[in-house]
């Protein structure tokens, strides 16, 4: 599991390398001092950034979270705009050069319904170029639901072409998949985050109480955890989501699903936290704090929790992809979010038919988004876990 085995640690590498930890013989006294005075967090960071894959994934996640913050900035058009005459446009390839100059464009498409098969057939018209512009004004949106903005990543050079850019094609109602994917990213990632945050709060609280107090409370909480863990997850989620009133708005369904996911999500973390508490409460520094007259809460919050914060972060990072996949599966089965909410699962659910599989395979791209996000979270989580305990060697 440990990716932190620093084989290429040569003496000439930048001195702040965590490699120094593992090969004490090569450390100069100056370096030794740097390491010994470095804070826990610094050590974690040194260790983490050695894992190139994890760092790359982290960058990817930061990018995804930028989309979460401002999906409109990334969209080329309103994700709800339908135009049946633009249905099933395939992916448009971006051409970066035009007549030898860097001038990105996408070819215009012309659609015609095949009179025999009634299928919309799109042909590219290379003579008509839709030139692209980056970081410029497009349709107006509400940034953070508050400020009016109109800056977009990509827009058409000619405002009249605004509806002719479909970087990832369109769906059966002529909605732009690129823009829908941006919005879906927001909802799917947020659901994952919210439910994990809820799980962490619940896990810390109940796990901490259980481990610190012990006795009957401990027994009760542990049996509760066992009960929750013994329940088969998929049927329980199905039952709970199916029980959500159908009259609820998409937003309420969204939060309800986050809570449902969190209800079981906290148990693993609760266990781990309890274990930590059990071992830590026997430690000298806890005893010292108690003797110094610190209150129970102060000991928990200021002395005990900080010792395993990094560990909690790593565990929660690993829990997010599980939540994302769960939300996606529930929505895919038609039990999670429902249109008009847009999530990866909703998009995949809409692509779940013969027509899409046979005629419009690009509509399965949201599946790729799920894979990328889940992989990235897992790699970052793994990297964090390995880095979480810098003294482990």
């Amino acid at each position, binding site marked *: 599991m440990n990716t932190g085995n620093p084989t290429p640690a040569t003496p000439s590498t930048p001195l702040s390398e965590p490699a120094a930890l593992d090969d004490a013989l090569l450390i100069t006294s100056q370096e030794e001092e740097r390491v010994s005075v470095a804070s826990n967090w610094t050590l974690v960071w040194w260790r983490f950034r050695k894992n190139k894959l994890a760092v790359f994934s982290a960058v990817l996640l930061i990018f995804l979270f930028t989309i979460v913050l401002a999906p409109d900035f990334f969209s080329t058009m309103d994700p*709800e705009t*339908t*135009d*049946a*005459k633009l*249905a099933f446009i395939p992916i448009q390839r971006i051409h970066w050069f035009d007549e030898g100059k860097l001038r990105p464009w996408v070819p215009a498409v012309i659609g015609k*319904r*095949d009179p*025999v*098969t*009634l*299928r919309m057939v799109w042909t590219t018209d290379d003579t008509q170029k839709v030139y692209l512009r980056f970081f410029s004004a497009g349709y107006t949106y509400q940034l953070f639901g508050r400020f009016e903005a109109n800056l977009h990543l990509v827009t058409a050079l000619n405002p009249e072409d605004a509806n002719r850019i479909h970087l990832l094609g369109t769906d*059966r*109602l*002529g909605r732009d998949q690129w823009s829908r994917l941006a919005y879906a990213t927001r909802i799917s990632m947020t659901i994952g985050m919210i439910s994990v945050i809820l799980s962490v709060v619940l896990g810390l609280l109940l796990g901490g109480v259980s481990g610190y107090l012990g006795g009957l409370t401990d027994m009760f909480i542990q049996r509760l955890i066992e009960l929750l863990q013994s329940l088969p997850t*998929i*049927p329980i989620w*199905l039952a709970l989501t*199916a029980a959500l009133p*159908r*009259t609820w*708005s998409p937003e309420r369904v969204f939060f309800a699903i986050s809570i449902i996911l969190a209800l079981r999500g906290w148990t693993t973390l609760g266990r781990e936290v309890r274990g930590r508490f059990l071992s830590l409460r026997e430690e000298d520094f806890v005893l010292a704090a108690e003797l110094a007259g610190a209150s129970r809460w102060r000991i928990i919050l200021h002395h005990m929790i900080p010792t395993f914060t990094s560990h909690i972060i790593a565990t929660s990072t690993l829990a997010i992809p599980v939540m994302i996949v769960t939300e996606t599966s529930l929505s895919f*089965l*038609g*039990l999670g979010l*429902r*249109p*008009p909410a847009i999530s990866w699962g909703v998009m995949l*659910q809409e692509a*779940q*038919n*013969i*027509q899409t*599989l*046979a*005629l419009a395979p690009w509509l399965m791209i949201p599946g790729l988004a799920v894979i990328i996000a889940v992989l990235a979270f897992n790699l970052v989580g793994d990297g964090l876990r390995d880095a979480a305990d810098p003294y482990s060697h």
Partner: protein
Amino acid sequence: MKNHKQALLRNLVGFLVLFSILLSACAPTPTQPAATQAPQAEPTKAPEQPAAEPTKAPEPTAVPEPTKPPEPVSKYQEAPMLAELVAKGELPPVDERLPENPLVIPVTESVGVYGGVLRRGFIGPSDYNNYVRVVYDGLVRYSPDGSQVVPRLIESWESSDDFTTWTIHMRKGAKWSDGEPFTADDILFWYEDVLLNTDLTPTIPRWMRNPDGSPAVVSKVDDYTVTWTYASPNTTLMMELANQDGGDKSYAVFLPRHYLEQFHIKYANADELNKMVAEAGFQTWGELFATRKNPAENPDRPVMAAWKPETRVSDEVLILKRNPYFVGVDEAGNQLPYIDEIQFKFFQDTQALNLAAIAGELDMQERHMIMANYPVLKENELAGKYKVLTWPTFGGSDAIIMFNQTYNKDPIVAELLQTRDFRVALSYAIDREQIKEAVFLGLGEARQPVPAPWHPYYPGDEYAKKYTEYDPDQANALLDSIGLTQRDAEGFRLNKDGKPFSIEISVVPAFANWPDVAQLVAANWQAVGVRTIVQVRERAAHFEMRDANEIVTEIWNEDTTGFPFTGAPKFDPRSQPGLAFAPLMRQWLQTGGKEGVEPTPEIKRIVEIIDTGKTVGDEERVKLAQELFKLWVDQCYEIGTVGLTPLVQGVVVINNALRNVPTTLGNDWPLRTPGNANPEQFYFAP
């Protein structure tokens, strides 16, 4: 290339099967087009009346080729498999099995040859009507085009001059599939022991009642003659009889008395009956009787239809074998059916069924075919060795929006729903071309829910197209005129009193991508400032809300326009099951004004038209129907979007070798499509 494609499709089958397993394990799948039937209509126009010629009916181009000169004296020919049994002495000769005057079924193209297995798909016990539609077995039937009622198991009928008494003449010598005679007693058994037995029939259906509520009288004149007598004129009886065929697991008007008596309390030994009820796990004898009478649930039950079930609808494959006693012959004297056997293969869901059709594994399938798959079907025609036909629906509109006239949960919304200009404005606001392209593959036409242009009840183009043009300006002007002039911060209209409101569209993902229609309509309505919420609901939940008067507006299809006077038309507030047109007015009408909401004068007139139409002659009835549809369109209780498309069971996949399938056909539930195409005369080219 082809191989590659097929391999891809095969993989997809696996993929979908996997998901369907998951889905079925979990919960209601969103793709359950199940019982198309439930809430639909009944019979068409006048019986013996050629007034209009609906769909260009496939003219029976009879080719009376002198089939192999019959060496023996036999008048009729039979299938080789039956001839063998006759030779062995296990079956009487064909002349003895057929009635004196057999039913001659016209062939669509040519006289056929015997043999073959017809493969179809079905989606489980709830899909019982899949069987009903293929065998379509009644005393009388609708013709292929749906324009008239034609004889089937009976020979002829006539009515008294005042239309109060109807006399039907049965076929002498007709026999059940077990060889027992089919006589007036079998009809009287239904009347006396089923219809008038309160255990089996708690409420007598409307078509069998006189205006005062008392049941009509059915009596036996002789073994082959039965009369129906009503207290007042009834001109729609034969249309009703055309659908008393056991559809929806109901009681057909003719039941095998000799077989079913053993399950009936009046005839059976009480102890034995109780034992049977207990063994079958039922509470009452009525429950036992009800299942024993369904041929596809009980292969022991004798039938009159061309094929007889050998297995059950709950089995993996529902197998139907030819009935050696079937009363029909072709014009050359060959006993029908041509095809030996029909197999209904079970599929987990409609997507899997559609894939099987694409792979050419089904010989004839229109039920559960998804219209959106039409392009895929067409592209695989050569590889799958099939052809795709379309049988557009029988008028009406394939996606309508019904406004609940008695909604009362929110007074603001209720008042708006009851405001005619509001409904008209919302009709103008819809871009039907967009819907046609997105949902109907560009087929069909924008129209209001009225019959097809070739139908005698058609009220004229003026009404079919009324309020269907896309005119947001007109819509805005109308909304302003009823006082919805103030807007909120997001630009949505506020009610006269300044309060916000929203209109909900409830939609079920049955048959078609109706949820897509809902989203398009919602976008159109929002564009004229009416805040609209789309709620996609599961079928059962939606149905419950209909009866509980909780629906604001709903999307469904309007397919009853050819049959406003029989069955349960959707514009009759009393129809149950019906759409959420005016549930509380239904209550008012049912309780004689004690409960519910009194209908408006317009709706009272609708009820009056329907009731009068049942008692008048054809000419008068056409006038009434036209008045009904003019009123219906003017009032806009229900707005049509796109109609005359093959959306509902109208995309037909036909094996290239299958012959005599008509290229045009009336398509509707009362016609039992494809039963009205006479599957008995389908045959496989050798």
